[in-house]
């Protein structure tokens, strides 16, 4: 469920990067305050463990296909929320750079979707509350499955909201939701079961590892600040969302004023440069092109793409091909120049 750059608008992507970056800085500060030095290599190696662990696959019961772990909640349980968030962020960064899973702008959204919910919602509110008094195997199992499921559901919901707010997909909100949530419920149940198994197995074989880790993470149990952080983070996303809502109303106003002047929502063909600039401006500000309620009807009444004129589109086609040819020539030229320079 990695988000991709191509599905994001700059505002949504930027807002999520801001929220993610803020959380990273907050976590780093929080850890720096009172950190066991031992944690530094441990965190790093556990990040590598997530990669290595994903190579070992298993058969998903009932389907015959194979899966691997995600590991976000496992990290939160082993390391506590602050360290776990940094490890998740680093894992996703390596994935974004080496496998281009998603891309650089979507990286903020991905860290948010896969990091915030397990670390700062599922772990403190669900896992900790259930396991607090007594750490029996049953309680660990229930707590782990529940928190993985909820973490993943929130993550999937975020993906839907982010894509919808960016206004790239035509999928209706409800269909998109129905597509994403059940799949991630199934994934969550399996991941939760596996994660619980790992935690229990490690605890029985080497209790000192789990206990030791728990001693380290005890420092991260401060409650009130966590709530502040969650509130701040939610606010950041809402602000981002609200901003793109407002931004989308802007071009309507512009169109409206053009309509007043020309009697049509668009400037006549002759005054091409102005129209060009205005439609560009609309393109830049229309972050939610048709995210209003009756989407079909509205689209017919108010086409969001100005170039319906076949002549303009033909020149777009010719121009596009020409530009690509020029870029290929440019590439060959650069290559040739570099080789020539090396020889001399």
């Amino acid at each position, binding site marked *: 469920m990695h988000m991709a750059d*191509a599905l994001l608008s700059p505002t949504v992507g930027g807002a999520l990067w801001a929220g993610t970056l803020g959380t990273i800085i907050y976590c780093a500060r929080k850890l720096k305050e009172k950190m066991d030095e031992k944690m530094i290599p441990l965190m790093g190696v556990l990040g590598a463990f997530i990669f290595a662990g994903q190579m070992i696959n298993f058969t998903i019961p009932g389907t015959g296909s194979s899966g691997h772990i995600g590991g976000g909640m496992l990290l939160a349980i082993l390391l506590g929320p602050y360290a776990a968030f940094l490890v998740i962020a680093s894992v996703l960064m390596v994935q974004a750079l080496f496998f*281009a899973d998603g891309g650089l702008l979507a990286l903020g959204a991905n860290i948010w979707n896969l990091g915030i919910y397990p670390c700062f919602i599922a772990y403190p509110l669900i896992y900790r509350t259930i396991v607090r008094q007594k750490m029996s195997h049953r309680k660990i199992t229930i707590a782990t499955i529940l928190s993985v499921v909820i973490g993943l559901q929130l993550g999937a919901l975020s993906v839907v909201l982010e894509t919808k707010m960016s206004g790239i997909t035509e999928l209706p909100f409800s269909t998109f939701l129905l597509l994403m949530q059940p799949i991630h419920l199934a994934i969550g149940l399996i991941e939760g079961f596996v994660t619980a198994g790992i935690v229990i197995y490690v605890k029985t074989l080497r209790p000192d590892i789990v206990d030791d880790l728990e001693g380290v993470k005890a420092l991260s149990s401060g409650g009130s600040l966590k709530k502040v952080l969650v509130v701040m983070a939610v606010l950041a996303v809402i602000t981002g969302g609200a901003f793109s809502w407002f931004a989308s109303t802007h071009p309507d106003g512009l169109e409206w004023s053009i309509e007043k002047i020309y009697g049509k929502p668009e400037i006549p063909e002759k005054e091409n440069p102005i129209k060009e600039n205005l439609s560009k401006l609309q393109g830049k500000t229309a972050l939610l092109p048709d995210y209003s309620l009756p989407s079909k009807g509205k689209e017919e009444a108010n086409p969001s793409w100005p170039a319906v004129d076949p002549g303009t589109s033909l020149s777009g086609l010719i121009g596009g091909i020409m530009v690509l040819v020029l870029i290929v020539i440019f590439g060959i030229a650069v290559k040739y120049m570099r080789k020539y320079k090396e020889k001399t």
Partner: protein
Amino acid sequence: MEYFNIGYLDTLSYKDTFVHRLDPRIKILVSFIFILFVVSFPKYEIAGLMPFFIYPVFLLTAGDIPLRAIAKKVLFISPFALFIGIFNPLLDTDVILTPFGISVTGGWISFFSIIVKFILTVSTALLLIAVTSFLGICEGLERLKFPRLLVIQLLFLYRYLFVLLEEALRILRAREARSFGKRGKEIKTFIRLISILLMRTVERAERIYQAMLSRGFRGEIRVLKRHSLRPRDILFALLSVMIFYVLRNYDIVSFIGETLRRSFS
């Protein structure tokens, strides 16, 4: 498996070309700005995105990166964008263009727009690492004032990635050697295998910590700074951003197309 290829992109980054020598900070920032420009196009735009291929093509050719290495990865990855995008042609069926009598719906145009944006952004991300190296990126992030703890985390992760991948491969080989067909891949076995890998990992971390202590670790790790900002870095950044701005705000594609069309008719 694609994980085996993780070192390949990094080996490409040991070359010594103009783009390899640029300051990593500049490359990170310019690439990020590039992606922002690309995704800022409205959803029915295809032609306007074409000139933006110039940036990845420049990194590719000036950095002497084999096209195949990047193209293969771009083709392989992230079906998510395509999966979401493919619904557009099905749902948005308003015909908005009829070139040569073929009716094209808005959905197909927005779908292709997603694909073009996808190729642009993904290839840029891959090329960034191929012309910068992972250590370079870490240095750049550190000097862009990312939290040091995160940078150290990235360095550790990368350093032990290959060690742990080999460990996982040994476990996989052992499982293969002891099981027929689909057996041995049950969840129960999987939990034990991965728990063992986890325990070995934690024990390794303990050994690493001892080793660090015996080499004088005092809670601080220094990151080597190899690059410094030179005039050419700043020139590259300014020029790139200026070109992106011009390409975004002036419809060069239509202009070229219009001129060509006029000159032929």
